[in-house]
């Protein structure tokens, strides 16, 4: 499995799109696994997307807690040392039950007091050399990849999708739109009715490894290669900024919308 080098969130390209206090905001969203009793990722971005990332990861890890660090937390935590930490409150209530027993899907909490606890070693079931350790480290890497990739997908969609019809019908107009009306997810006019962003979310949810996910994402772009998906794709690979997974050569050689599949393009008709 390829490793995504990603320790300092603030210098990531996706950070440019976030409020990060001009480079001074510290990592704030902690991803914690109750089952392993260790944290496995941290980011400095918005809490809403952090929670969505936990949902994507829930296909592999149950009951993830996304915990926001309070202003009094003094621990220097980053993605290079995150697996060395656990939390001091093992009974965080998610819904009506403690974390371990609540649900497969994640919970979100803002922590009032400092809660991160450094550990000298992993729990016995997950010490280095065990199968559990390898799986956990692999998952931690995948989680960091998901955080980075899902932010990227949301950002390119925010910039380039000018027809979020499905979202509006579901979120704002439920029951008020004729059922016969088309509700495409975006303006990409792609073969996929989900649109690139939602396809990426589904791939991240189902893939087992970074390599698996990135190959499927590349295939998704190939199958949905329209003039309107072109700027989404270019932005995706640019701000994902992953040296292990640049835009595949066959796609990178397309340098204009004119190089995409124009069979469904009817021209600028105004």
């Amino acid at each position: 499995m390829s490793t995504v080098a990603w320790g300092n969130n603030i210098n990531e390209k996706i950070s440019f799109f976030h409020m990060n206090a001009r480079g001074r905001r510290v990592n704030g969203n902690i991803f914690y696994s109750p089952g392993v009793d260790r944290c496995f990722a941290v980011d400095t971005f918005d809490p809403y997307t952090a929670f969505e990332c936990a949902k994507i990861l829930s296909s592999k890890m149950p009951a993830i807690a996304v915990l926001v660090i309070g202003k009094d937390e003094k621990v220097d935590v980053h993605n290079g040392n995150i697996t060395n930490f656990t939390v001091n409150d093992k009974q965080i209530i998610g819904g009506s039950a403690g974390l371990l027993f609540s649900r497969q899907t994640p919970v979100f909490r803002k922590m009032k007091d400092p809660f991160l606890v450094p550990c000298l070693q992993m729990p016995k079931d997950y010490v280095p050399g065990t199968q559990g350790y390898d799986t956990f480290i692999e998952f931690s890497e995948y989680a960091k990849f998901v955080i980075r990739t899902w932010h990227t997908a949301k950002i390119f969609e925010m910039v380039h999708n000018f027809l979020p019809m499905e979202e509006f019908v579901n979120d704002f107009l439920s029951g008020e739109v004729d059922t016969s009306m088309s509700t495409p997810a975006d303006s990409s006019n792609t073969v996929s009715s989900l649109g690139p962003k939602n396809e990426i979310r589904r791939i991240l949810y189902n893939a087992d490894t970074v390599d698996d996910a990135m190959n499927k994402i590349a295939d998704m772009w190939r199958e949905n290669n329209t003039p309107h998906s072109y700027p989404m794709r270019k932005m995706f690979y640019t701000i994902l900024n992953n040296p292990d997974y640049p835009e595949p050569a066959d796609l990178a050689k397309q340098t204009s919308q004119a190089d995409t599949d124009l069979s469904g393009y009817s021209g600028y008709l105004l």
Partner: protein
Amino acid sequence: MNINTMNADTKIYYSSVNWDGAEANTFWTETYNEVGPGGKFVIDLARRINPNRFSTRDSSEWTLPWPDEILPKYKLIQYDSTYTGTFSEASDSQAMDYARRIDENNEKFAIMYSGGIDSTIITTALIKNLTKEQLKNVAICTSVQAVVENPNYWRKFIFGKFKIIDSMINKYDMLLEQGYTPVTADDGDCIHGTVLGLNFYHAWEQKIGHKLTAEQRTHVRNNLHKLSDKDTHFSVFEDALVAYFQYGDTSLFPIPTNPNPDPMFGRKLYDKYALNAKTASCPVISLHDFFWWLIFNVKMINCGVRGAMYYNDRYDMEKAINKIENWYLWPAYQQWSMNNNNNGQKIGFGAGTYKKVARDYIYELDNNVWYRDFKLKLESMGQNSVRQTVITDVYPKPSHRFGITTDYTMLDIMDPMVQYYVRHHLSNFKITWSEETT
């Protein structure tokens, strides 16, 4: 007409020089390198305002490279300077005529509704003037994007009250085959003004400020508030307009960069527009008059026929063009439009008051202050049709539809015969409207 009988004298009703990002780009680029200044101007006009689909509706001067005739449906009516009818009266009278047609012929109408001001005028006029029984003959062809443009109106006046047809799937050919008279407001901009003008009023400083001298910039700043002043001639803004009409030096899909750009193109285009305006069959004085006239006259036919031309893959072209109803072609609107340019009814000083009189008409029905005071002009057509499929069994790809002859034969720009015709006329086309002839 059989395409094989086409010759240099073949007359056309409608033409489109259109970069398509692919094969047509190759043709236009090769042709550009072969023809003289006149032909280059025509192709550069498509580079500046893609596509180039302009032709005149009256006797005002607007030369085309190829022999042409005014499409009869769109010939401009005689200007009447004594006309005093209002926009509301035009809307009501058009709606009442639909009521008559329903009563007399049981005609069924499919209203192309985008949620924008122009199409909301249609539904508003019909709701105001038709009985419940008559409204049963009216269907709404629309998309979710239209709902989003005006959700309050949708909830109060459309949803559950009309038959809904999905415009994302149903094109004009399908509506015609179902027996509907499709009604489009696509010509709404033509009676009020143009986005080309709005962009100039709103963003001239950003677009061309760097091309003007400090003195010229000050001049525009000091005079722009007179854009609807009937005593301030549009030529007051000549320097800025020449700069505005010059095409840019960067490519924007599907239009490629001209490697040897014509530095005098802006001057040539201004002179062509200005000559057309000066020879118009009604007064064209103010800056808003000037931009209004461009779309009311030389762009109107494109706005009128593009539904039949590009959102119709199989229906007989003559029948489609003449059956599809352009709501604002109603003579009362046309006459109102020629008589009310500089009194604040079409625009105040910016985009928020564009189509002011239409906003007020809608407000009388829906009492929605948000829509009246904040609605912006959006280019709805492309948004509503983004998922439509294109079938090319009868007509070529929409972006290859170069035009129609006077017997409504479709011309495919990829057809060698059509390419020969176009090259021949572009090669012989001379710039006669400007002192810049080379």
